[in-house]
């Protein structure tokens, strides 16, 4: 057997989001001890008193980029990390915070802060991390899936690229032998959503809301037609498509859709 290599240095960082993904790492009771045996978490402001300024072998980034100051911060982290992985829908696709992109920010600022809004470091559009820096792998989901996270860390620790499912939630849904909710007339987004959550929602009788973002080579048009035939209005369909992943609005395939 090869000699044990030094454990990879890992930094965990939070940007704009609810911190639920970081919390999910803390909640990995069954695995946390083994994980610590595999990696050396040198930076994690949410959980540690003393934190290294870098560099890191692996950066795990949660949250979307909503402020100008965050752009500088994410660029610095990228420069100081060999591998950068986004965790959660916010970092990967913009997530729920980026729903703001669909509304008028100046009016919102005014409602909340009145006339003096100059001190606010808020950009008009909230973007996923990949908009500003290169991302090596993404673990989407709202929140990210704990098991997928553990699998990814294992892969990284032995120097492999994490395997991210390139197929839709329906795969996992079928394997769990759920009766299809779309067939029951419910607005399920499983066919256009990347698998990896073990079809969590449909397995509990709720439709997939698409929190993990679009599957590779997504066929929006087909899902659009199905939902429309089930009685959804174009406005409703658009809202569903963009809810967790407002950044999809920039996808070429998405812009071909007529709402």
């Amino acid at each position: 057997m090869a000699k044990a290599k030094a454990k990879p240095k890992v930094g965990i960082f939070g940007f704009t989001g609810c911190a639920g993904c970081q919390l999910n790492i803390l909640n990995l009771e069954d695995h946390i001890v083994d994980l610590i045996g595999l990696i050396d978490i040198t930076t994690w402001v949410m959980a540690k008193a003393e934190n290294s300024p870098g560099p890191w072998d692996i950066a795990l980034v949660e949250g979307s980029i909503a402020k100008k100051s965050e752009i500088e911060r994410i660029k610095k982290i990228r420069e100081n990390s060999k591998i950068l992985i986004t965790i959660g829908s916010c970092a990967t696709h913009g997530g729920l915070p980026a729903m703001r992109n669909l509304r008028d920010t100046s009016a919102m600022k005014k409602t909340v802060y009145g006339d003096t809004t100059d001190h606010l470091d808020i950009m008009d559009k909230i973007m996923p991390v990949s908009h500003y820096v290169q991302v090596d792998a993404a673990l989407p989901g709202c929140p990210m899936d704990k098991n997928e996270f553990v699998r990814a860390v294992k892969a990284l620790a032995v120097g492999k690229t994490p395997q991210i499912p390139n197929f839709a939630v329906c795969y996992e849904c079928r394997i769990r032998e759920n009766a299809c909710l779309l067939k029951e007339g419910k607005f399920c987004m499983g066919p256009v959503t990347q698998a990896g959550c073990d079809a969590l929602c449909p397995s509990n009788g709720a439709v997939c809301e698409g929190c993990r973002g679009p599957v590779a080579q997504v066929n929006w048009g087909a899902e659009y037609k199905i939902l429309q035939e089930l009685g959804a209005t174009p406005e409703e369909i658009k809202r569903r498509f963009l809810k967790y992943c407002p950044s999809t609005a920039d996808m070429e395939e998405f812009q071909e859709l007529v709402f």
Partner: protein
Amino acid sequence: MQTYTIRKDEIPKLVEALKEEYEVFGPMPKRTSYVFAPVTDPTKMNLDYDSTIMSPKKYYLPSSQTLMEVSLKNATIEDTVKDILDQKPKILFGVHSCDINGINFLNRVFDGKYDDPYFQAYKEITTVIGLNCLEPCKYGFCRAVNKNFVLDGYDLFLTEISDTHYYVHVGSPRGDRILTIAHEFFKEAKEEDGAAFTAALHKKHENLPVALHIDNIHETLDLAWDDAIWDELGEKCMNCGSCALVCPTCYCFDVQDEVDLSISKAERVRKWDTCLFYDFALVAGNHNFREDPPARLKYRFYHKFRGAIHDQGEIACTGCGRCIDACPAGISIKDVLFRLQEYWAASPTPQGGL
């Protein structure tokens, strides 16, 4: 061949009796449908079921299966075949003809063309109690593909001959074993039972529709390579894979190595894969033989109704209709075949007598 009858209302008791020696699986209700599942409560098993979400394929080729375990510490490798053989023997209760034919098809692949010890081990421990369909199910078209009857692949086979009784054929020594351990439930068939069985077959032939004909299907597919239907289907299909996953004859899998968190153990796991997925035909150098999603759906048709004839000697479809039920886009393999055959291979009209 000796035949028997069994009272329908004795089936739950029979299942209970068999449970001592076997783990029994059968059609159990789930939401709006049925699934093959452990028969925990035999009174819940419904032999009048229409179809199940997944076929019994899962008992021969599980959706995820550890093939071997590697200990990095001790530098040992152990395969799991003997773990399968050590399992309690299984009974699959109430398997329709289409699905027995599905298992027979898998047999051509995993105990014919390829030598798969895992599949063969599952076969070894599994007893099949078949069930004749006298009425059509909602989506099936078994008769159109000659899969509405079975010649082999069952251990016992039940046919409903009245509101109260099934007629029982014995297909193998494994079937005999059931008669031995649960003899009190089986009565030797009398002449009038035989007559009732013949009447049941008549009823079956009246009831099961011939939804389409598949003569020359492989030539049809040769002719239809550029047919506009493939673009039409490509637009609708989301490559979700449901059709292949529920199919009793789709046998593709991926093999992955998974390391334990302690980095001292690893497993080689095989998981169902489908030709509908991007990664399926992705090879070294990032080349993909079927880059376009529509090409992958088309491929599924060509494999089932053309390639399989070369490879396994018959089409890879039992007409079970599950893919039609499962497709969120409403794509029906039956309708597609019907349209192709209508256009490219109109059925010959029988000419005169002999």
